[in-house]
C-alpha cells in the first residue's frame, strides 16, 4: 500500500484531474460554440448567394489552412495587441476551439445536408411544407444522424488540440503534467499518466462511435 501511495504514478493524479477538468471544460464549451458556428457557416456554404457562400468559404479555408497553434497565439496575443483588450487564457482557449472546430464542423454540416437525397426535399415541398419547414422537419433530422460519427471524431481531435494551449500556460491536462515533472523530474511517469488520461476519454469515445456508425450503416 505504501508503495502505491509513494509512487509518482499516483501522486501526479490530483494535478492531472484538475487539468482534465479544464481540458473537458474548454473542449465542451468550445465545441458547443463551434457547433453553432459550424451550423451557420455550413448552411452558408450551401447558400445560393455568392456573397454568403464566399464569406463562409474564406472562413473555412483560412482556419483549415493554418495551424491551430498559430490560431491560439493569434487569438491570445495577436488580438490583444491589436485591440488593447486582454482576454484571459481560458476564454482565449475556448474561442480557439470554437473557431477552429467551427470550420471543420461547417464542412461536416454541409456534407451531411448535401448528402440527403433531393427527393426528400421535393417530397416535403410537394405536400406544401415551406423551405424552412422542409429543412427543419425533413432534411435536418436525417442530416444530423449522419453528422454524429464525424462530430464525435471532431470531439476527439479538439480534445487533443487543447493540449497545445499549454504554450500559453492554460492549466489543462498536459500543462499540469509538465508542472508536475518540472518539480519532481519524473517526466516518464507523469507523461505516462497524462497519456492514460487522454486515452480514458478518447478510446471509449472511439468505440462508441464505431458502434453508432455500424448502426447507421444498416
Amino acid at each position, binding site marked *: 500500500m505504501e508503495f502505491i501511495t509513494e509512487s509518482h504514478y499516483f501522486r501526479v493524479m490530483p494535478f492531472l484531474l484538475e487539468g482534465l477538468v479544464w481540458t473537458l471544460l474548454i473542449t465542451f464549451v468550445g465545441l458547443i460554440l463551434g457547433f453553432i458556428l459550424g451550423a451557420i457557416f455550413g448552411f452558408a456554404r450551401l447558400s445560393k448567394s455568392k456573397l454568403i457562400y464566399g464569406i463562409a468559404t474564406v472562413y473555412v479555408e483560412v482556419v483549415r489552412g493554418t495551424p491551430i497553434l498559430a490560431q491560439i497565439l493569434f487569438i491570445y496575443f495577436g488580438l490583444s495587441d491589436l485591440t488593447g483588450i486582454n482576454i484571459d487564457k481560458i476564454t482565449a482557449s475556448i474561442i480557439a476551439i470554437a473557431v477552429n472546430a467551427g470550420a471543420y464542423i461547417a464542412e461536416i454540416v454541409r456534407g451531411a445536408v448535401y448528402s440527403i437525397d433531393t*427527393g426528400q426535399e421535393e*417530397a416535403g415541398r410537394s405536400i*406544401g*411544407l415551406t423551405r424552412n*419547414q422542409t429543412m427543419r422537419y425533413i432534411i435536418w433530422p436525417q442530416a444530423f444522424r449522419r453528422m454524429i460519427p464525424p462530430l464525435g471524431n471532431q470531439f476527439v481531435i479538439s480534445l487533443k488540440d487543447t493540449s497545445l494551449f499549454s504554450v500559453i500556460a492554460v492549466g489543462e491536462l498536459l500543462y499540469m503534467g509538465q508542472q508536475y515533472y518540472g518539480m519532481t523530474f519524473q517526466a516518464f511517469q507523469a507523461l505516462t499518466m497524462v497519456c492514460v488520461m487522454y486515452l480514458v476519454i478518447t478510446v471509449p469515445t472511439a468505440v462508441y462511435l464505431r458502434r453508432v456508425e455500424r448502426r447507421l450503416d444498416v
Partner: protein
Amino acid sequence: MITVKDLHKSFGSNEVLKGINAEIKEKEVVCVIGPSGSGKSTFLRCLNLLEEVTSGDVLIQGENLTDPKININDVRSRVGMVFQHFNLFPHMTVMDNITIGPIKVKGMKKTEAEKIAHPLLEKVGLSDKAVAYPESLSGGQKQRVAIARSLAMEPSIMLFDEPTSALDPELVGDVLAVMKDLAQEGMTMVVVTHEMGFAREVGDRVLFMDEGIIMEEDVPERLFGNPQNPRTQEFLSKVL
C-alpha cells in the same frame, strides 16, 4: 382544372419542353406516355412548380402558377405528387409521414391529423403499418404510404410520376389497384406511366409525348388501337 399554355422549359441551353398545350378537366384521368427523355417528368413537375417554368402559363383551378405573387406552398398542398422512388421520410413512422403535412401545413392537431390518416391507411390496405418505419416496408407498401401521404392533404389533383416503375412486378398490382380506386372516386389525376394496361383501362385520355411536345392525344381506345402519328405508331409497336 389544369390548363397549360405554350409551356417551355429549358435546362441551360437544353430545351426539354417545346411548347406544351393541354387541358385537364375535373375528375379526368390523363395518362402520359412516351419514350425516355421526352420530357414527361419535367412536364409533370412543372404542374406543381418543382421545376421553374421557362415560359408559358400553367393554370391550376384558375390560378396562374407563373404569377410571381402566387403562394406556391398553398398550391402544392392542393396538388399531390407521387414519385417513382416513393421519397418517404425514413426517420418517421408511416403515421408521421402521413400526418406531417396536415399538422405543419394546415395547423391541425396531432389527434385530428391521425383521424384523417387512419381511413387513408385502410384505403391503401396498410392499417397494421401505422407505427412501422419505411425501411421495414416493401416497395409496393412504400408507394401506397406515399399515396396516403399525398391524400392526407386532401388535394384536388394528384400527379403520379411512374409510380410503379421501381417495383418488383408482383407488387405493381396493389399500387395500381389503389390508383384505380382513386380514379373511380373522381380524383383528377395525371399519371406518367409505362403501364399501358392501366392507361387503357383507367385513363380517360392518353397523351403521347416525344421530343418535348405532345405528339398525339386521344381516348385510349383510339390512341392504342389506331394511332395516327408515325412516332406514336413506332413507340407503341415497341412497348406493346
